[in-house]
């Protein structure tokens, strides 16, 4: 969908600039303490991966990857935009750097799967997209980097990361429910619908 129109609409219209920057900011805000507590305030978890999945579901392949890229550039420049007020170049040399880098392809894969669903992606598709992109791809990048940086074997690194799996599974479920709700309330939140509208808008 993105590919067939890319030669002509490489120009990156203002509507996309706005969406990309607002979603990058939204991912940052979801990392603020207490932005959202899933079970009352009993389980405070960082919700930035939820933001990454939502960006994929709503912005589509390349816009969501760009939103993550913008956020990571600002973090690299030293702004404390990651959960817990982390920021600076240290996060890119820390053992968890791969999970952060994995957000880029993770959001893109999420968006790609949702875009294949056309004008009304089903709940099952959203869930698959969040699981495959938001967890599968992110861990695929995160675990090897963690193993390399910390000098662990892949198996041991995977074991260390498994602690985050239940939370991430929960986030994938929440992201697809929220994504579905958003797309019902605001049809323009479906990537295919948004692109059609942009094209109809004279570009």
């Amino acid at each position, binding site marked *: 969908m993105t590919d067939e129109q890319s030669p002509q609409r*490489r*120009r*990156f*219209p*203002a*509507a*996309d*600039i*706005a*969406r990309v*920057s*607002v*979603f*990058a*900011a*939204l991912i*940052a*805000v979801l990392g*603020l303490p207490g932005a*959202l507590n899933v*079970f*009352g305030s009993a389980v405070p978890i960082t919700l930035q991966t939820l933001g990454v999945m*939502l960006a994929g579901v*709503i912005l589509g392949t390349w816009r969501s990857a*760009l939103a993550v890229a*913008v956020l990571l*550039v600002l973090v*690299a*420049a*030293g*702004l*404390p935009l990651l959960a*817990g*007020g*982390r*920021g*600076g*170049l*240290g996060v*890119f*040399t*820390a*053992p*968890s750097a791969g999970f952060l880098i994995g957000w880029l392809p993770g959001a893109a894969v999420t968006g790609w799967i949702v875009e294949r669903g056309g004008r009304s992606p089903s709940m099952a598709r959203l869930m698959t997209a969040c699981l495959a992109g938001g967890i599968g791809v992110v861990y695929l990048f995160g675990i090897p980097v963690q193993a390399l*940086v*910390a*000098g*662990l074997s892949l198996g*041991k690194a995977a074991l*260390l990361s498994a602690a985050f799996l239940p939370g991430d599974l929960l986030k994938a479920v*929440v992201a697809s*429910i*929220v994504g579905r*709700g*958003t797309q019902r*309330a*605001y049809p*323009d*939140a479906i990537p295919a619908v948004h692109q059609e509208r942009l094209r109809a808008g004279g*570009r």
Partner: protein
Amino acid sequence: MNGLTGAYVPGDSPLHRLPAGAKLAGLAASCTALLLLGSPAALAGAAAAVVLLYAVSRVGVAAGWAQVRPIRWFAVVLFGVQLVFADLPTAASSTLRVVLAVALAGLVTLTTRTAALMACLERCLAPVRFAGLDPFRVSLLLSLTLRSVPVMADLAARVRDAQRARGVERSARAFAVPLVVGALRHADALGEALAARGLDD
């Protein structure tokens, strides 16, 4: 939101005066070197060099600790795991390697103004023009994002208040759906405002 100032510690040390690009290149080179250093003795030397660099930069102990603090538990776990599965020298050197890499990156952050790093990163992003993006749009994207962070934080606070008023505090859906829809409305209005100012012409 006043937390958006970064961790820069003003100063006049040689490290502060070094251009941002040089510091980034140095960081990349020393992180690679850390991965190649094998023996605990060599890593101890590297640790001494990092401590010396911190001393030269005069950023203070508290600022340095704030950079390393986020990985303290990971370092403890890593040390323990390596001690069980390998031996003491391996545990010491792999833990030291991780801590030193984070400390070095933190030092660049502490001694470089956010604006200087941003300018440097924007230059590094110049190749995006081959992907059809022009650098002006890239810097607009970055500054719009910075502006949007407090706007989104404000929106999140308002949605939470509304949620409380409706008595559905425990529902993630009642928080996130209005937040995301609100964010999209804001984004699309912003996009129209940008287009109206001739950005697409």
